[in-house]
């Protein structure tokens, strides 16, 4: 799932980098607040182990197929979602630098695709609730399978969106989806299976290792709100860039027979209205500036937009909290 730099355009790369930086910054603040000094070492150790484990291809009997893990759900279950996210982000950076797996510009995309959805959507919304009431190896397996499949598919959809909006390939959206989603359902299932097996073993051997078992670290509503807003924001900014394509993402979604519902078309209509009024970045580049420079500037504006909007949301939340208090 590691995307190379060539697969995305500069604005998308920079926007995703901004989004990842915000998510990482938030996670780092959270971990620093809770950590008593020993967590960062455990993060490094488990990170290196997942790095090593990623190099092993596991064979699935009878199919001849093989796969390796990404490890985000595994890390989230052992370290908590925030520390897990930071750890997977550092693994991806080392891979980008040392192995050239994924690129520097695509770094934000890769962390978001492989880390964000699993750590902050699949883990708190699927894994934790499923294991909250009762925990045993069977439930761990079920929860791991489900959360890994969801996490990986969300990541794959994100890959499709980023590449498609970047406009680097002439593939149609349908081909993109047909190409990537089915493969990733299988990848997600293998990931879930391995995660479930490892967590199951650890639960039996040393239950205290599983953060989930400690009944702590449940994500607060505030965290879910912050991260949820970040997701929506990133999607919004990305959709601004989609205007280049004659059949932009929202347009094709609205046109699709299956998904044509009033709600979706009105959402699409709303976005296209915003875009036509607010979009500073028609055709990727600024008016009067051509080529790479214009595109890069567009990207920077993308980042600034994400940062400013996030700050605004943070302020609004803080104000609301103050009001409540």
């Amino acid at each position: 799932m590691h995307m190379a730099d060539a697969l995305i355009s500069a604005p998308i790369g920079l926007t995703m980098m901004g989004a990842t930086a915000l998510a990482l910054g938030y996670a780092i603040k959270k971990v620093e607040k809770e950590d008593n000094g020993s967590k960062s070492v455990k993060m490094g150790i488990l990170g290196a182990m997942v790095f090593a484990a990623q190099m092993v291809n596991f064979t699935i009997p009878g199919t001849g197929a093989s796969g390796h893990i990404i490890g985000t759900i595994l890390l989230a279950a052992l370290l908590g979602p925030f520390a897990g996210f930071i750890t997977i982000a550092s693994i991806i950076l080392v891979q980008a630098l040392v192995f050239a797996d994924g690129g520097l510009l695509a770094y934000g995309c890769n962390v978001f695709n492989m880390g964000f959805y699993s750590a902050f959507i699949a883990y708190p919304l699927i894994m934790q609730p499923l294991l909250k009431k009762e925990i045993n190896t069977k439930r761990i397996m079920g929860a791991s399978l489900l959360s890994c499949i969801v996490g990986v598919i969300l990541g794959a959809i994100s890959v499709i969106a980023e590449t498609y909006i970047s406009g680097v390939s002439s593939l149609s959206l349908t081909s993109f989806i047909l190409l990537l989603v089915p493969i990733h359902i299988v990848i997600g299932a293998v990931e879930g299976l391995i995660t479930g097996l490892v967590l199951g073993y650890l639960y039996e051997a040393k239950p205290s290792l599983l953060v989930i078992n400690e009944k702590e670290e449940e994500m607060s509503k505030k965290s879910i709100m912050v991260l949820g807003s970040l997701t929506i924001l990133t999607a919004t900014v990305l959709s601004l860039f989609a205007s280049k394509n004659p059949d932009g993402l929202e347009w094709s979604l609205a046109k699709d027979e299956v998904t044509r519902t009033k709600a979706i078309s009105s959402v699409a209509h709303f976005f296209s209205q915003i875009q036509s009024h607010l979009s500073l970045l028609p055709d990727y580049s600024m008016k009067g500036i051509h080529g790479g420079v214009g595109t890069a500037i567009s990207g920077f504006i993308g980042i600034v937009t994400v940062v400013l909007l996030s700050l605004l949301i943070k302020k609004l939340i803080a104000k609301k909290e103050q009001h409540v208090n």
Partner: protein
Amino acid sequence: MSIKKHFDDLKEIDELSSGKQRKKSSHPTFWLVISFVFILVSVSIHLDHYSSFVIYAIIIGAFIAFSHNPLKLWIRRFASVFPFIAVFALGSFLVGDYYSAASLIAKGFISVTIIGILMSHFTIDEIGSAMETLKIPHLFVQQITLLYRYIFIFAEEFTIMSKSYQLRNPLTKGISIKDVGPFLGSFILRNLHYGDLVYQAMCCRGFEYMRMNKKTKEKIETIKNNPFEIKLTNVSVHYDHDLVALNALNVTIKEGETVALIGSNGAGKTTLLSAILGLIKHDSGEISISGLPLNKENQHIIRRFVGLIFQNPDHQLFKANVEDDIMFGPQSYQLDPEKIKRKREKLVHDFGIEKLMHRSIHTLSGGEKRLVALLGVLILSPKAILMDEPTVFLDGKGRNELKSYIKKSPLTQIICTHDLDFAYEVCERVIILDKGTIVADGTKEEILANEEVLKSFQLELPLQLRGVI
């Protein structure tokens, strides 16, 4: 690709960026930013004429030629990104958009080339410090450097586990899915403790050392100027609440003493050494070094003057090659490079390990690793050295060399050992620990030559006193 091949690649890449072939460069922050901007610009430029591909090819070729990296490393790097790019390029190719297909591949190659060149000039540590300059939070940068170090340590462990798995399951290619849980699970369990020890070893050589301030300087002067002394008053350490590791221990060790710490397994010997350096927190009592009490604030200063040689040198050595490992401590403490260079040359000459300097750590024998670990501590000019089972992994020659070194050394030395002959030969004072308390403390003649005392703690007379040797 097999795990071994992956790790071999990793080692090769690391050796290129930290080994002797490395083309040393400065200003990692500048080059990190430039590389990023270069990728940004090259990805943004629209390629729609054959001449642009020629220019890209010339740039990539020139970069590869000037990088001095072996071609197979480049092939390995390109191979890791190529399949994903190829799928998308094929899509464009099939619909007749040849320029898009070709530009995808060209851009893929150029970004890999740029990262490759960056990494053949800078180590991960240097990139880490560049990231800190760019105000990237310390916790994240620390993760990158920690993770990279641990990879090499666990790589060995992982290869051994995979090999033994393959021996028992010769017909399975890779690891069967039914064994994944126990395989990865036990890998995690085994190495959590291992990783913790490595971290302790790093802390002992200045990792996370606080920057100097006036107060720190004053404390350093206290240790430097006062007569050296390690003093423990009523020190107790408990594991998991009820297991007592040290029980109200009182002991003072003076400057220049060489003390043997003996006792059966679980008597508290290693715990005592770890407690002196603050690697294990004591629950009650006081530990002080030259009058400076051990606490969270002072432990970094104390570790600067009291070195620890771990039982397993693999826990202590974590850099790619010998030279880098020896220099880890001085670099962490930011000691004067010129002075350190002279000191290093002298030590390397005294120990006769000139030939080892550029070797990779994982190729050294047990005895060589022990020597390198000792040098890594000695280069910091400590006042005292604590050694945990120093004769383990040593052959006869290594044992003799270590013996003569300890005898000659003017430093305060505490040696934890089961080898009573070694203790008898090198130490003047002997302490017997039993169940976390000191049960005997005296000269080597009083303790090691006294069969009755030794027997009551399941110990035997040294062979040389029994007339065996």
